[in-house]
Structure formats: C-alpha cells, structure tokens
C-alpha cells in the first residue's frame, strides 16, 4: 500500500492516515449566496491531475496538507498547514452582526 510522508512523523503506511477533503477557501458565511454556498459544499476540483488535500495522521492527530496526483497516486509533497495558513481567522461574531 502507499507510503505517505507525514511532515511530523516521517513515512508511514497510508492506512495510518485519514483523507480530510480538498483544501478550498471557504466563502464568508455572512455574505454568500445560496448558490455559491452550494458550490462550496458540493463541488470539488475533480479533474484528473494534481490535487491539494487535507490529511490527518490518525495516531498522532496531526493535520497537514498533501499535493497528490489523483491518477497515478504519486504523492508529490506534503507540508505543514502553516506554510499557507499564516493569519489567524477570527470566527467570533461581532456586535454589528447580532
């Protein structure tokens, strides 16, 4: 079976990992149309080629990102989320929204 190179733990059998869905930008929930929200929920980058995905190393509960070719199953690279998520996202609801 495939070997996945976990950025934290090194190369492990893929059975130790859980696929977490594609990395995609979530629209602002306060400001999105129903159609755009449906697009976000139901549609994915599903063409053949390289995809960017969330993966969880189950034994260590470590989430990371992998670039993988979805036809050859080649794992191009894996990297910690900090590489693309640099800013903190505030989820708290401000007074103006109440």
């Amino acid at each position, binding site marked *: 079976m495939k070997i996945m190179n976990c950025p934290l733990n090194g190369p492990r059998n*893929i059975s130790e990992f859980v696929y977490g869905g594609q990395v995609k930008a979530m629209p602002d929930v306060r400001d999105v149309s129903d*159609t755009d929200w*449906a697009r976000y929920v*139901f549609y*994915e980058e*599903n063409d053949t080629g390289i995809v960017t995905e969330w993966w969880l190393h189950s034994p260590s509960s470590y989430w990371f990102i992998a670039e993988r070719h979805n036809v050859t199953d080649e794992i191009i690279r894996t990297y910690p989320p900090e590489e693309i998520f640099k800013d903190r996202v505030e989820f708290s609801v401000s007074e103006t929204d109440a």
Partner: protein
Amino acid sequence: MPFGLLKYGLSKDYPFEKDADLPAPTALKRRYDVVIFGGGGHGVATAYYLAKYHGITDVAVLEKGYLGGGNTARNTAVIRSNYLTPEGVKFYSASVKLYEALSNEFDFNIMYSQRGQLTLAHTDATVRAFRQRAEVNKHFGGQTELIDPVDIAKLVPTLNLNPANLPVLAGLWHKDGATARHDAVAWGYAKGATQRGAELHQLTEVTGVDVKSGRVTGVDTNRGPVEAGVVIQAVAGHSAPMARKAGFELPLVAYPLQAMVTLPVKPFLTPLVSSSALHCYVQQTSRGEIVIGGGSDPYPLYNSRASLPLKESLLSSAVEMFPFLSEMRLLRQWAGITDMTTDYSPIMGLSPVENYYIDAGWGTWGFKATPICGKTMAELVASGGKVPELIKPFELSRFDRFKQVNEMGATAASH
C-alpha cells in the same frame, strides 16, 4: 428443452462465426443524430431503447476501451430496489421489473436469478432504518420485510449470526433481490442495438466536446471529429473530467471500489447476503464462484488498482460471516472507479449545455439501474429534451437547491 442449441452441433462452421452477435467494426461517420460516449451497460442500453422503441437508429456508441470493460465488467452483479427514499424506490423498482423480462426482451440469456437479497442489521439504529425501508418498499409494491434471526437462520443456514461480536439483530429480506451475469447485460443490449442499426465503436476515445453558443455540436475523438445532434455522456468514473470538456462541472468525487472472487464451488448459498456493520457482502454466482464486495476505498483516485489493507479487512469480514470461507481459494481481486455524489443518488438528465445529456453519479449503485437508465435516457432524447418524471429528482440542479435524494443508508455496505 434447448433445441436451439442443435444448430451448433449440426453445422460444419465454427459456432457463432456466421451469426455473430455484434457486426464487424465499421468506419466512423462524420455525423450521427445521437452520439453516446461510454460503451458500458448504460450506454448500449440507451442505444437499444432508442432503436427499438423510438425508431432512432442513427446512433453511435463510442467506447474508449472494449464493450462493457469499465464498471459493467467490475461490479458484483447485485440487482435490488430496497432503497430508502420514495424517489429511489420508484426508480429502482422500475429497473427490477425490466430486469425480470430482460433476457426475453433482447433474446440473450443474462442468467437473471431472483434469489433474494438479505441485509443484516447489527445495531438498533439500523433495525429502525430497515423498518422504514421495508415500509417504503412495500408502499411501492416491492417485496421487502424486516425479519428476525430465526428466519435469517432458515434462509441462510451457513451464516454465522454473531460475526465479530456484532450479533445480528434483524435482517432486511428483499425477495426481489437478484443477481445476473453482468457482462451479458452489456452484450445483450449491444446485440439488440447494433442489429437494429445503431453502431458500436470500440477503441474510440472522446478527447473533446464541441460547444457553440451553449449548444453541443459534436465530439472530438482519436479517430477524428464527429458531429452530433444530441450527445449523451455515460462514462461512470470519469464523468467529472469529461463534463469539464463540455465546459461545466459535476459535483462528483471518484473513489476506487474493490471486489474479489474465489474459485468456483458447488452451490451452498442461495440469497445474496450483506452486512451493514461489517461493510461486506457475499454472494454465489450461477457458476459457483463466491463474489465478495464491500465499502469504497478511503481516498479519491482515478485508478482501478487494488490494495492489501482492503483485501485484509474485506476477507476478515467475509470469514466472520462464513467461517468456512477461510479454506477457499481467492482467484482475483480488482477495482472499478466510482463517481460518487454526496447523496448517493445519480445525476441524470439535462446539463448546462443544450442537447448534452448526463448519465453520471452512479457511484456504487449503477449496475442495478442499467435497464431503467437506458429506457429513461432514450425517452429524454426522443422527446427532444423533456425530462421523464421518474428521473426528475436526479437532476443536476438539485444540488444548487439543496434538494438531495439521500440514499446513503441504503447502499448495502458502504457506510
């Protein structure tokens, strides 16, 4: 008595050379009224109903590999209609009805065997869900009952009723459940379609879709361009990439689905048996082989490779259900590529491109729907784009309106 077989012994010619089921390959014309790409069960079934019931014979079915070589060859041949939603039950029940008459419909024995399908419940929640499914089924004329372990033991005496310490609490007994020779379904439809004038072109791959002003005008293939009045895509696993060639997206994710088969043994198992908790189902074909299937692969992949972890978990589940299977020899392990929707229901009907029709999102539930799919897609074409009532719930636009037809609970082993 099968007196029809006498002609094979009394003739000097090698059998089937003179009256071959499929005509010899022909040149690809520059234009057809209808182009169907994807030469699996669904594609040739659509061509068949177009030719036989609507007199539409200027039809080409284009298949990049060989006839029925995709998921039609790779499924585990389960036919049933014990679904959860009224829309699903109506649809699949219509398919079962067509299957019951199919061998005689196209004059080819698909070895349709209505032996009944039994799904095992190991938790209270599953028992409740099964009760609901039984009632919905019966409301639409199906033969589905919730039965207790005593009756299960009578139906399948060889079954272990306490597999993996998950005791069987009840069973969903679906008398309409059946199995058939899956390849023969494609061959029968292809024979019926081509003998009425439709053309089947194998080793012919669609490489592009031509769209002008929002309407499809034809396809590009490895054998040159083909103009078409109407195009139907029926390609299973690669539905999403092909739709993108036509300029739109489909809400699908492709996962491999693996299965395996043993060497044949004398008959010991009559019904098809499935366990919801063990994610494994087992049936014995007419030839005596034991077919074992289960849940989808754990991550998306456009590839039909098999894997060891799934082999191990699937076989240990099968051996829990039938311990003596441990002494059987496994012959083969394979996979198909399944285009999964989020609601485990198909996507059928119109697309954003005019005259370009979709038959996709068949995931792990496509084989049982082959006849009804062919019939309804043919009606869609023949009516000039009016979507038949039976498939209206499966339209692509349902996702934008959050109107999913949720059948996840009724896929026998996936969840």
